[in-house]
């Protein structure tokens, strides 16, 4: 039997170990989530012991001082700023990524991309002041001082948009660059122009990565705190007018947690309920967008 070939399965312990540790790395995020839900839930219970779920989810006024706990006032403001931010960031971010990946020279791309990425690292409180001292006066100049409040969701939203542009453009550019050259060649071979190739062939082929960028961006916009805290105002207000002040969920959380309120007041407990709401809100948004991405995702080769 000597020198015969052994084709039987061997246990490769190294491989198994690696796979196990990779699995742990992957599953770690579940622990994080459990931790978040547990920590927030524990305190939120105290809140919901005093405020009914019905009032919380149906009310449109949020004034803890006078026992009004309607999350819609804050939720609405969060949705407004996020929506405005998306209006700014998605088209501009996507355009930049198309420009960088399809039009710009290699050299231009190599310089522009890192420059844009620096935008992502400026502390957001700086963006907050940028919104308040630059964007708001600009809006007031355009639409009139009577129309635009000094604190408003529009200016906060636009600046959040600027903040997440690099995120959208950088990640999308990676996705676009990863599309095989052969596809571009095929399109050109059929007599497509540069634009048609970029928008109708490359872009759809990169949709999975672009959607991932969008998801991260939207999530970031929802969770953005300091900009809204400085520029969107600190009073809850249920309004659809982007030029009015309105406090967002994150703005409220950061205000309460840095304030002089007693830590055992109901107002203080409310930040955990809001945090939990925010968590489930982004969760459902993600589940939906994941479905969409799945539908569009294509496999190459």
């Amino acid at each position: 039997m000597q020198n015969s070939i052994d084709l039987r399965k061997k246990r490769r312990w190294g491989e198994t170990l690696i796979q196990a540790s990779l699995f742990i790395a992957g599953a770690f995020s579940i622990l994080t989530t459990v931790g978040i839900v547990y920590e927030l839930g524990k305190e939120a219970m105290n809140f919901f012991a005093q405020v009914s779920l019905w009032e919380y989810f149906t009310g449109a006024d949020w004034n803890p001082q006078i026992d009004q706990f309607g999350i819609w006032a804050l939720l609405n403001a969060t949705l407004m700023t996020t929506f405005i931010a998306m209006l700014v960031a998605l088209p501009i971010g996507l355009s930049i990524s198309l420009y960088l990946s399809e039009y710009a020279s290699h050299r231009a791309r190599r310089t522009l991309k890192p420059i844009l990425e620096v935008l992502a690292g400026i502390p957001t409180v700086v963006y907050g002041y940028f919104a308040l001292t630059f964007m708001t006066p600009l809006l007031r100049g355009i639409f009139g001082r009577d129309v635009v409040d000094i604190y408003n969701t529009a200016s906060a939203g636009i600046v959040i948009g600027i903040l997440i542009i690099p995120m959208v453009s950088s990640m999308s550019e990676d996705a676009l660059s990863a599309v095989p050259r052969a596809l571009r060649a095929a399109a050109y071979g059929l007599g497509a122009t540069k634009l048609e190739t970029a928008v109708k062939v490359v872009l759809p082929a990169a949709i999975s990565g672009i959607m991932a960028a969008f998801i991260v961006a939207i999530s970031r916009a929802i969770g953005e705190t300091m900009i809204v805290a400085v520029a969107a105002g600190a009073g809850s207000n249920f309004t659809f007018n982007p030029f009015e002040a309105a406090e967002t969920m994150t703005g409220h959380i950061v205000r309460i947690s840095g304030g002089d309120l007693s830590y055992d007041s109901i107002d203080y407990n409310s930040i955990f309920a809001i945090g939990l709401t925010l968590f489930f809100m982004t969760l459902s948004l993600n589940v939906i967008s994941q479905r969409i991405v799945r539908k569009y995702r294509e496999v190459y080769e």
Partner: protein
Amino acid sequence: MTQIKEKEGFADNLPQRHRSGGFWSRLFQISTGVGIVALIALLLNITNSAFGYVATENKIDPETLAINGIPLEQLHPIDLTYILEQNVSAGFFRAQNNEKPFEERTREEIYDLVIERVVEPEAAATWSLFDSLVHKDKINAEVAEKYPNAELSFQSWINGSFLLSPQSADPERAGVRTAVLGSLWVVTITLLFAFPMGVGAAIYLEEYAGDKWFNRLIQTNINNLAGVPSIIYGILGLAIFVRGMEPITSGAFLGPVDPTTANGRTILSAGLTLGLLILPLVIINAQEAIRAVPGSLRQASFGLGATKWQTIWHHVLPNAIPGILTGTILAVSRALGETAPLVVVGASTFITFDPTSPFSKFTTLPIQIYQWTSRPQDEFRNIAAAAIIVLLIILLSLNVVAVYLRNRYSQKI
């Protein structure tokens, strides 16, 4: 010349297509321009406060300190010491003397101390860079009128002593030393935790995980975590790292520590909290990068009898590294700029000693910046702008390293 006939059944739409192509390409360019302009506007906004004219007034006129007609700068060290003793608090004088007796000090050392603590030049008014460049005459006139004793000079708020001094309540003496060191420590821990963890998770999800419910759950979960507001990570970090793992994060497991002061509010806790925060970002980016590696490469490797891990290590990862680095740059940039979660985890607002280990108390640049921007005095806004520039320089250098790595690996392929 022969005219080429239009093809049968096809409209002659090319000029129109080129027009729309041109239109959109200009639009893309403009968008890029807008992004750059936004960046420049922001940077100018910051630079505007970080440089400019300062009218400096002395608290005490040096001339009044002259003894027997000898001006201050020519006084004997003993006289200087006497002036110092007369004008500063006794405790300070004593502390200075304990540190290094005045008899042993050089004349310059004592003179500098007199200027700093007795003459005490203070900013009476400051102007932005824009005003300084454009309205110089107006500033001169204003100074002459309002601050007749003041000296006008152009100042860069970001300078050597700003970088090397610890914090201070006095904006002229304050620096970012502790904050810079704190930020670097924290972000290093963050990177050490999030990079291997994130890339590992991405490899698992892309290369190993089948389409099972559990793996789908992990995926959804990661996308979701990317959207959790940072302050919630702060709450989590407080519960897990500061409280739950206190023996580890306070350094107590390494040996005895002073139980009355050591607690979990350390660099390690902060770094791990930010690590959790950026982990989803790292994972999602790394996944995209790994997914973009062509399958033929993997097959080629398997075809040569490589194991799965060998394939990943030798072929998939090297090809995915540029994309992974992009994600990591973005993630680390975010970690460097975070404020809210660190406040919850316990970054100190006032701290004057350098962090020396992962178990030190700390502060970070954004915390300093946030604190300074909320102060009423103008000079604090100037040093806040200077601190922002310091932060951006750190970020840029990180970027340079990453871009260098990215380009190096990109060229290899």
